[in-house]
């Protein structure tokens, strides 16, 4: 409907009382898009040192019903996952994204964990994924889609376990954008996840696990003096 396109653009210009922007103005606007100028970033996280940001991330995530296990190193992750599943009375069978970030973890240390690497399907009770970054300001995880990180793994399993490294914690969304741009092109999907799925649609009473995971568990690795 190219007629619609031209008419809409024409009506916009008529409403604004001008014609098409001149080339110089368009060039300025294009440049300003590329500048990625930040607006005000709240001091809440930005004013803290990295240790403070990690502590804030934990506090904010717990406030929205995520649970967090802090471990000293990669080696401790399988036990942390297994303990969590046992503690929740969940099966030790899980689907894990083929994300290379999860490869260095010695999963074989816990042979009781039955792991399938790949895409989640309906019926998968527990999913484990890595993530791209975490935002201290609101306790938010940032996950990207990609060949090794299908988005559905973040939503289909009832329990979502996320392996996060402390060095991935940043203060604000804006730092997430910077890291994303440094990585390259936009992925199909960027998921910001703040706690497990919820709804208040019936009498404003909070119920966890509306359509997405009922539980969000974060295993936080204190990597390399981060």
């Amino acid at each position, binding site marked *: 409907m190219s007629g619609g396109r031209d008419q809409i653009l024409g009506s916009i210009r008529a409403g604004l009382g001008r014609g098409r*922007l001149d080339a110089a103005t368009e060039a300025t606007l294009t440049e300003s898009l590329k500048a990625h100028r930040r607006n005000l970033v709240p001091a809440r996280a930005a004013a803290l040192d990295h240790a403070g940001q990690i502590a804030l991330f934990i506090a904010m995530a717990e406030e929205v019903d995520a649970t967090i296990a802090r471990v000293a190193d990669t080696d401790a992750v399988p036990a942390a996952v297994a303990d969590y599943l046992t503690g929740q009375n969940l099966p030790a069978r899980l689907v894990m994204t083929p994300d290379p970030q999860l490869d260095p973890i010695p999963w074989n240390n816990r042979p009781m964990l039955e792991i399938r690497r790949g895409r989640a399907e309906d019926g998968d009770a527990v999913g484990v994924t890595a993530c791209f970054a975490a935002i201290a300001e609101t306790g938010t995880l940032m996950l990207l889609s990609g060949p090794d990180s299908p988005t559905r793994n973040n939503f289909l399993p009832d329990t979502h376990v996320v392996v996060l490294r402390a060095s991935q914690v940043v203060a604000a969304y804006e730092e997430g954008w910077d890291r994303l741009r440094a990585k390259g092109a936009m992925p199909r999907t960027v998921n910001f*996840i*703040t706690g497990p799925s919820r709804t208040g649609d019936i009498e404003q009473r909070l119920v966890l696990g509306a359509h997405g995971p009922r539980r969000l568990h974060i295993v936080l690795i204190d990597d390399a003096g981060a």
Partner: protein
Amino acid sequence: MQPTSHDFKANAHRALGDKNLQRAMGMMRTGFPEKRAMAIARMPEFDALRDDGIAIKQQVLKHLDFYLETFEKNVIATGGQVHWCRNAQEARETVLALCRALDAKTVTKGKSMVSEEIALNDFLEANGVVPVETDLGEYIVQIRHETPSHIIAPAVHLVKEQVAESFRATHTQFPHDRNLDEPRTLCDEARTVLREKFLAADVGITGANFLIAETGSSIIVTNEGNGDLTQILPRAHIVLASIEKVVPTLEDAATLLRLLARSATGQEFSTYTTISTGPRRETDTDGPGQYHVVLIDNGRTALLGGEFEDMLRCIRCAACLNHCPVYGAVGGHAYGWVYSGPMGAVLTPTLIGIEEAGHLPNASTFCGRCESVCPMRIPLPRMMRAWRAREFAKKLGPKTARWGLAIWAYAAKRPALYRTMSAMASRVLGLLGRARGRFRSLPLASGWTDMRDMPAPEGKSFMTLWAEQQKKAAR
């Protein structure tokens, strides 16, 4: 949707007598405002964020053509398509054509108010495509054959017993005597039912909270995750968005997102904020094969440059609804069309005409709470007043009210006459009301005295007493 805004009074009367609705609205009136207040108290920069947010939207509106063209360019560059639709009909037909091209039988939908605005569901259904709403509240109103009564909490007018009743009537696959007493069990049942729908859908349709010009992305926020399952499982993702949703950069979106959740539900951040760019990449193992953005004007461009332009800053957070005492009294359906509360009172007349929607900007006490909580500081009372001025100029209001006003104004412009009349009224009413100090009924004032007593004047007008006092002092 056939508007019933002209029946606002009758709608409101019904709502005020509806016990379930009143119980539900009672919960809403305290819940949302308290949560918002707490969230804002924790964000000392909130007002500064508002300033930034307003500046972003103003910048967009000033260069709307540029940002839309840039957005389109970047959608195409990432493998998606943009469809420009001037009005509701074009938008409906565009969506249907996309569904037909994919031979789609069912579509899942994330909550989208512009979808309600263009009345998409009825149209798809009439043309053999089954739309399934997946936001819990929106699903509830869909199976009840109702419309959302609130722009972010569609079923806010219902109590859980009504939801249980509707689930029993609709989900006949389950034992009739199952327990549906609590929101928890209701939610679990909806989850089970809708999970199958997600897995079976051919197309997923969502709205957009924001479109990002710089990247050609759309952003949705949900708490349930329904918007995500809607868009990643089917073969195509169709985004419905009105043209004013575009913002320049991801940085700008971050600022507006900080305002949105706090204003809407009092959350620090919605559970799921999802940025979608194009269809799945070649090496991806999931995601939609097609990505379409249906850009809808439907009256927006007509607001640019006019006295309702500020309305285009609206980010649909519903803070104005949540804090409006009139909305809180009668709920959203009384407003008779898609948008309700103060934002609806301003926006609806622009979309369906002041002749149909004249009650909406009139049904306000101008208490100003809406403007005070609006993250975009939209001057809602000022614009409601502007509608009243247009209505007055068109002589649309009730005749008796206009005559009464004309007589009053005649006197108010003549101080000596006014003083005499006021003195007389004060004297007469004062005498008549002397025994009780108030009236239970008064001729020509039944609108007042049907509901409450009318206190009687003291007996002499201030101006009379003042003149007497001045005379005495001069002697």
